[in-house]
């Protein structure tokens, strides 16, 4: 149950709006980081990667701000019902976003290493496509949050399957490259971590979408989250292919 009516204490409304504005600001920075990091990787742009690295500090700072504001709201306003859920979800979402920021930073760091190696054909382009998908999921999840839209949130949850499949494909591809030529191993290991991190970002976007469902309905979705990452059961069967 969500309530659009105003509080009698208008300062309470302002506090809740302010903390949600922080989340949106954080979301904007994280989306930009993912985009820039993937572009830097594909275009082998060290300067852009450096920019991503730096902007992570701002994201971390925003997360701290969100936590402080949330603690203040709980202490001073004793939120209940949808207000309580707003504060709880804001805290969780800020953690999700902060982790996404860390992954983008990590991507940027690895880019700094990868530019000194021979490029792996097509890998950076595939990774960028995957990053774009995750960035869109994140955007959709945050839009769903602002609009309290369960339908949009569910769409995010289902799109995570696509990301998982992209990751599975890349995983197989990297295995093949490494077996073909051991000199590819270093680059492929870095690329694999990058792909895995982007896949994790997709999970965080999904988690945000689940928070939207909790915020709006009061309950977490009951059906198990669709999962498509099957690499944990993957054996070295590429030789046969």
């Amino acid at each position, binding site marked *: 149950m969500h309530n659009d009516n*105003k509080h009698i204490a208008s300062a309470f409304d302002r506090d809740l709006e302010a903390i949600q504005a922080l989340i949106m600001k954080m979301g904007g920075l994280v989306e930009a980081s993912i985009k820039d990091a993937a572009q830097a990787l594909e275009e082998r742009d060290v300067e852009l990667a450096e920019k991503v690295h730096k902007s992570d500090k701002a994201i971390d700072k925003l997360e701290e701000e969100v936590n402080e504001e949330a603690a203040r709201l709980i202490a001073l306003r004793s939120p*209940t019902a949808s207000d309580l859920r707003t504060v709880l979800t804001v805290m969780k979402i800020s953690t999700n976003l902060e982790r996404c920021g860390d992954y983008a930073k990590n991507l940027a760091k690895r880019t700094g290493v990868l530019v000194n190696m021979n490029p792996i054909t097509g890998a950076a382009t595939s990774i960028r496509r995957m990053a774009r998908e995750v960035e869109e999921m994140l955007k959709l999840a945050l839009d769903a949050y602002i609009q309290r839209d369960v339908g949009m949130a569910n769409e995010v949850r289902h799109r995570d399957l696509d990301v998982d499949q992209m990751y599975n494909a890349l995983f197989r591809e990297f295995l093949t490259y490494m077996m073909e030529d051991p000199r590819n191993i270093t680059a492929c290991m870095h690329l694999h971590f990058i792909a895995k991190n982007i896949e994790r970002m997709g999970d965080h976007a999904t988690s945000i979408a689940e928070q939207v469902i909790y915020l709006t309905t009061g309950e977490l979705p009951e059906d198990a989250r669709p999962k498509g990452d099957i690499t944990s059961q993957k054996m070295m069967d590429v030789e046969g292919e």
Partner: protein
Amino acid sequence: MNDMRIVKRDVDMNDTKISAKGVQVFYGDTHAIKDVDVEIKDKTVTAFIGPSGCGKSTFLRCLNRMNDTIDVCRVEGKILLDQEDIYDKRVDPVQLRAKVGMVFQKPNPFPKSIYDNVAYGPRIHGLAGSKADLDVIVEKSLRRAAIWDEVKDRLQAPGTGLSGGQQQRLCIARAVATEPEVLLMDEPCSALDPIATLQVEELIDELRENFSVVIVTHSMQQAARVSQKTAFFHLGNLVEYGDTQQIFTNPKDERTESYITGRIG
């Protein structure tokens, strides 16, 4: 239900103590309570919340027939205490009120000594065989109300000379002295400071071991702190009744949500 306190105590909350069915209350032409059904569980604290004039106090007063004293008041429907209709003609309201005790908003000790305040109920109901028995009841009641240590040396001093918080606890001691099965509390803490309020709340939680407690409160935080079940009244209707945790985290009715989150609705 995820209330840790209940798990710890292992209290069987499934027994219904009071069952109200289709209760309607009229004050003359005013329809104050509209068709309320509610089951109050044994050994449970049930909180009634709602804006002023919503009928929560009126309904509370139906549970021990305090509304009988108001001439224009008419009660319809059934209220069963342990399956027995309390509005049955054969029921003596005085006996009923010994079973269903009440604590009011303002502390109202009798203008008697502390001892006599507590001894009054057991005396009129003949619960004590001797002076020694009565002494035991008085001490036990004052201990239960967490005020014994503060008054044990001046039991003959007037009850009205105590502080507000002490007076309220004295009234609670008086209410529990007759060993009631249900304790009704109509905003018992509204005249108390925060510390005395917490003491009374702690007491309510302890009383739950022996009684079913129904508390009317304007403080939603108090309802959240002390109760396991919460009922939200609005304009004479029982809008929502459920586990306190559910009411405060995920109310099903929009009116409940608006009220507990402090919105105009």
